[in-house]
């Protein structure tokens, strides 16, 4: 703890305490008569308007991925990291197509999780179980990414001991983690919704200041772009290839343009398949709330593009570049840049913003995973008569277990580029696309065909991702591999395989007249907007409909 800056440290601790206070106080915010109900703990009462939903979804979508992982990839490899910018452009028109339909049908039937919808649509407990399992699995590395982000900031702050024992070394991380776990347990979705206000205020503040101030210190944008262009064109002595690309290249083999586009498209389709993004959506009060948010949310994407450029600023600042090189951890690029460029009090604000910016989505993600476990595994298979209070209690505990699982991912997987944690989650969650997005528009797909497609996609995606190696790691090193001479995001190739199998088997199963299960939804429910949502009765929550 020798090189801790007292001012920075104090400001981070004070802001962290403020947020912790808000997290516990959130239990009283819009307090319902009975908190022990999943609609309350897990969906904040299903009454959030445009304004709160915007903050909540923003808190969902812009995470340590945005502040740490994307700039780290830009710092290390150049323009390929900007796939995240193209992704956050494409995501809104894509979800505009299907998200309002999901909101409507979920509101009519009181669905809390995406797996609830799958079960109701296809009348298949097996398919619902597959989707719940996928959701929980895919969220683990995504939550782990948040922990890696917090760790990066703490490392640069100099907090943490030099002990070789993982537990002792990462003690500050565990403390932050524990606080997160406790206030999620107590306040449910209300906590991240309330904290999201504080988080976004801090983040807008430091990003705007950084974007205008840092270039003046580094000789302007033309110098920053110039240094970056020269840097990525230079040949690495180790691999005899350029260090990166300044704009995606179009060479036919290993073309980064194809990689860029497939990563962007895969991530864009994946985003609103994630249970936590759906949780944020279902907490909205009206159908129009969801639609209008898709118009305002791209404002966050502008921020993401600017944050990605921090990666180039870190390249252009010799001190930061040297610091990162010394540690060999590109995740530290943004924290080192801020520490070197800003006075220590402002560094404190920025660091607190990043830490809180990682805690909010981690809380929402663990709530979403917990809801999946409770409704679609525990209640469905083990205790069909569980009362709403018991379900809520189960979710509270499950949210703790999920976080521990994430901690394992954070410790076990290599994080040369932590962005891979998010891309790995994407490989898995994308396999829900045919059953979920497909199911919102047509009942043509057969449930067993969807299950077979899902299984093939999961197996192919997992094995392919496991087999990617690099100089730094023998497995799980990246999330793209070569298909037909092009470097492609594994998630995308896996979901194509998944879809082909689902289509072929559906044709066969339909010809063989295999029973297709009952569909409890009807077409007009996909565009409904009940003014006064029917109060979910205990029978509608969890028990077999």
């Amino acid at each position, binding site marked *: 703890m020798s090189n801790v800056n007292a001012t920075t440290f104090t400001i981070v601790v004070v802001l962290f305490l403020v947020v912790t206070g808000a997290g516990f106080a959130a239990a009283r915010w819009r307090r319902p008569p009975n908190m022990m109900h999943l609609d309350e703990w897990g969906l904040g009462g299903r009454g959030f308007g445009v304004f709160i939903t915007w903050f909540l979804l923003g808190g969902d979508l812009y995470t340590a991925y945005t502040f740490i992982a994307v700039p780290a990839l830009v710092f290390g490899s150049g*323009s390929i990291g*900007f796939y995240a*910018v*193209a992704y*956050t*452009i*494409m995501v*809104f*028109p*894509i979800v*505009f*197509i299907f998200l*309002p*339909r999901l909101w409507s049908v979920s509101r009519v039937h009181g669905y809390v999780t995406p797996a609830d919808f799958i079960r109701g649509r296809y009348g298949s407990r097996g398919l619902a179980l597959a989707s719940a399992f996928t959701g929980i699995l895919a969220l683990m590395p995504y939550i782990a990414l948040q922990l890696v982000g917090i760790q990066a900031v703490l490392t640069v702050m100099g907090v943490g001991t030099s002990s070789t024992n993982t537990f002792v070394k990462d003690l500050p991380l565990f403390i932050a983690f524990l606080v997160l776990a406790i206030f999620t347990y107590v306040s449910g979705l209300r906590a991240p919704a309330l904290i999201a206000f504080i988080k976004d205020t801090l983040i807008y503040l430091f990003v705007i200041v950084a974007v205008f101030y840092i270039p003046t210190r580094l000789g*302007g*944008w*033309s110098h920053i*772009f110039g240094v970056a262009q020269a840097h990525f064109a230079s040949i690495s002595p180790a691999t005899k290839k350029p260090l990166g690309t*300044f*704009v*995606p*290249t*179009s060479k036919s083999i290993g073309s980064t*343009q*194809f990689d*860029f*586009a497939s990563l*962007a*498209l895969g991530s864009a389709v994946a985003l609103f398949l994630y249970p936590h993004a759906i949780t944020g959506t279902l907490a909205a009060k009206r159908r129009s709330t969801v*639609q*209008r948010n*898709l*118009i*305002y949310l*791209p*404002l966050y*994407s*502008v921020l993401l*593009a600017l944050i990605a*450029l921090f990666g180039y600023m870190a390249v252009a600042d010799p001190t930061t570049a040297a610091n990162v090189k010394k540690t060999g951890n590109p995740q530290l690029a943004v924290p080192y840049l801020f520490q070197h460029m800003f006075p220590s009090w402002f560094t404190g604000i920025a660091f607190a913003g990043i830490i809180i910016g990682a805690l909010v989505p981690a809380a929402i993600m663990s709530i979403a995973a917990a809801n999946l476990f409770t409704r679609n595994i525990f209640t469905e298979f083990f205790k069909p008569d569980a009362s709403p209070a018991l379900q809520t209690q189960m979710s509270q505990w499950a949210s703790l277990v999920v976080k521990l699982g994430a901690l394992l991912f954070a410790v076990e997987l290599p994080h040369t580029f932590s962005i891979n944690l998010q891309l790995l989650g994407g490989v898995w969650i994308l396999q829900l696309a045919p059953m979920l997005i497909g199911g919102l*528009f*047509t*009942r*043509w797909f057969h449930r067993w065909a969807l299950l077979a497609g899902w299984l093939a996609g999961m197996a192919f995606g997992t094995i392919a991702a496991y087999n990617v190696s690099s100089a730094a790691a023998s497995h799980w090193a990246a999330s793209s591999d070569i298909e037909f001479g092009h470097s492609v995001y594994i998630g995308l190739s896996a979901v194509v395989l998944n879809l082909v199998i689902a289509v072929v088997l559906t044709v066969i199963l339909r010809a063989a007249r295999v029973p*297709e299960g009952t*569909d409890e939804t*009807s*077409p*007009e429910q*996909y*565009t409904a907007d009940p003014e006064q949502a029917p109060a979910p009765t205990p029978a509608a929550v969890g028990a077999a409909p």
Partner: protein
Amino acid sequence: MTQATSIPRRSVIAAHPLLSAGIAILIAADIFFALYTPIYSRLTPKLGDFPFFYWYLLIFMPVTSVALWLAMLLQRRLGESGGTR
């Protein structure tokens, strides 16, 4: 089942072919111009100090907002009753 899902939607689209096409084009164009990288993966023309690749992506964000806003307005005109998307 398939029939039941598609009939109301088809009739709304048939009743307002221009509006429906307008929505479809807005959404499709928004996705295509971000997805097809060869359009923007180059250095010039620059805007200020920003190479083309970078300012194109930055300007695309507000364009997306406006396109989705227009798409929503068109959807409203399709009417609340019908199965718009």
